[in-house]
């Protein structure tokens, strides 16, 4: 093959290669959600109350313990599961009982859940139970919000700051 033809062939091959790279490095554009939708996220890490309340030990019980392990309270490690509900405009989006993590279920219950929702005015309500009660909730909060397209609306929970927070 003539050398100029060979060089032309190489140029075509290189051009095709960089065209492939240049195009698929950024295109086609990708949208994980529709551009006219909004996102509602519920996430928290919360330690439920103890499954069995701490018990004050008797002097005899304390005396039987090794000297370096003598405590006045006997606290079983296991934590209660956390029950959470999320509502949008009165419609239940999520109701979940979240077990405490850890082999002995003695650590936090955590959740990360997202929902694609239409933009516009909405009432968001969140409820959480972390105690042994069988009815009702220990924490509730509602808010009315105007969601814009693409907006990320986050429902978080921190017991130390009073419960649910909306961002």
């Amino acid at each position, binding site marked *: *093959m003539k050398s100029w033809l060979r060089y032309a*062939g190489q140029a075509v091959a290189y051009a095709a290669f960089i065209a492939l790279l240049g195009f698929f490095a950024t*295109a086609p554009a990708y*949208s994980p959600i529709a551009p006219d939708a909004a996102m509602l996220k519920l996430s928290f890490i919360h330690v439920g109350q103890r499954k069995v309340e701490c018990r004050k030990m008797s002097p005899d019980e304390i005396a039987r313990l090794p000297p370096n392990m003598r405590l006045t309270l006997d606290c079983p490690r296991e934590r209660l599961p956390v029950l959470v509900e999320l509502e949008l405009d009165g419609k239940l989006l999520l109701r979940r009982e979240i077990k405490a993590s850890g082999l002995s279920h003695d650590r936090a219950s955590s959740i990360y859940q997202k929902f694609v929702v239409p933009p516009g005015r909405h009432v968001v309500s969140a409820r959480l139970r972390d105690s042994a009660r069988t009815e009702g909730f220990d924490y509730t909060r509602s808010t009315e919000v105007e969601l814009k397209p*693409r907006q*990320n609306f986050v429902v978080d929970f921190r017991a130390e700051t009073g419960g649910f927070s909306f961002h």
Partner: protein
Amino acid sequence: MLKQIFQAGPWLLARIEKLYSAAFTPAWNPLYHLGALTIFFFWVVVVSGIYVFLFFETSVTHAYESVEWLTHTQWYLGGVMRSLHRYASDAAVVTIGVHMLKEFVTGRYRGARWFSWFTGIPLLWLVFPLGITGYWLVWDQLAQYVAIATSELLDVLPIFSDPMARNFLTNESVSDRFFTLMAFLHLIGFPIFLLFAIWLHLLRISRPTVNPPLGLMIGSLSALTVLSLLWPALSQAPADFSQAATGIGFDWFYLLAYPLLDYGSPALVWLVLVGSSTLLCLLPWLPPRRRKPAAVVSLPDCNGCGRCVADCPYNAVSLAPRSDGLAYAEQAVVDAELCTACGICAGACPTSTPLRRKSELVPGIDLPGLPIRALRDWTLAVAVQPGGDPGARVLVYGCANGVNLAALRNGSVAVVELQCIAQLPPAFIDFVISRRHADGVFLLGCRENDCHFRLGVQWTTERLTGKRDPYLRARVPRERVATYWGGRVTEAEIEGEIDAFRARLRALGPYQPAPVTQASYEVAP
């Protein structure tokens, strides 16, 4: 299905390779240097990455600004380096993909070659996270998507007690510590493991090609530089967790699996990734299994010269202290696990000579599936052709991994099929011509730089030109020996080459051996 792939794949590949060889020459054909090109792109990524890192601020608040400054204010160098960093990493994904596909359709992943195939799969699990963490550091809309999606993907695994995705709930929840961890993984963690994995991938290969030809390096780098100038890599809008990222400029080379996360589930992504990786890992052992018996050493005939050790492309032969009491220091030892049964060692053995008369033809090292003695018998059986074209009878020694050799046979063309062209000891050429078993010998092998067993064509060329032991003796008339390194081209094309060779032989007239002198035994210049 697999059968169709193994039939159609090499056919299609041969045609594409032929096009590239026409443009680049076989020596520079990028399809023959895919592994080396990948390593070259890796070094481009490393060098450009080091330059970009000099200006990079490893913090959530300043990372985006620093990349923007580099891209726009120092576009002529920093911007080009950033683009090279991105495009070379994308190019590596392309070459890896084609490399894997080529090895698969040509069946170069089975038998003793399982190790290189198997160790290539973990490489993928390092290359992709390396690229993905790189996008994370730019801290733009793509980084925002990658951070959230990757966290959601990892949260399915029982690794973290708390959801990692919580780190990216709001702009305030993102911490510099997490960002530093990503920078560490991208800059040090993954690259170090990747280097180790590349070493492991090449461990069982003798004389691995880790650098492509200079011309190909210059061409590839120039092409990437042109792309960087014409279409520079740019950041998208800065990450903002108060809004969902949409219309993202997506790098499909690295993030192809991510949409499955949004339209399926994280578990589905893991199922696809782990499932396909497991399947790829198991491929070498799936039917049809075709492992041929490994080379064997005949100790009474081995003098421990080491030629087989030097020529083995897979480090399957080594030298060990003599165990049989003969007066040689060492002996050849074959590791059957590493042997691909290519027969190159038998072709390198100085005792593999069909001219031997006084003793039985048993070389020091041989291939049980097609021993040298059988090769001589086959040569004798096909070479004595009644009739044919006087003065233009050709004996073809061909590699079994190319075209259908049987189709080349006719009244004047006989064919002997080898595992690899380098399985043929040069003494056979001397044998055929000096004993007038044919008027000429035609050697048919794979494309240069694309030998099915890696080094067969190179070793054969060096043996014929007197650069590698065992040499073709000087008394063999070179005009009666032709080579064609055509690989998987069509039979018609090879027939054309053989016809042209026969025409040259016809013009030469009958073979008249030169008087035997000392020079006859010397190596041709």
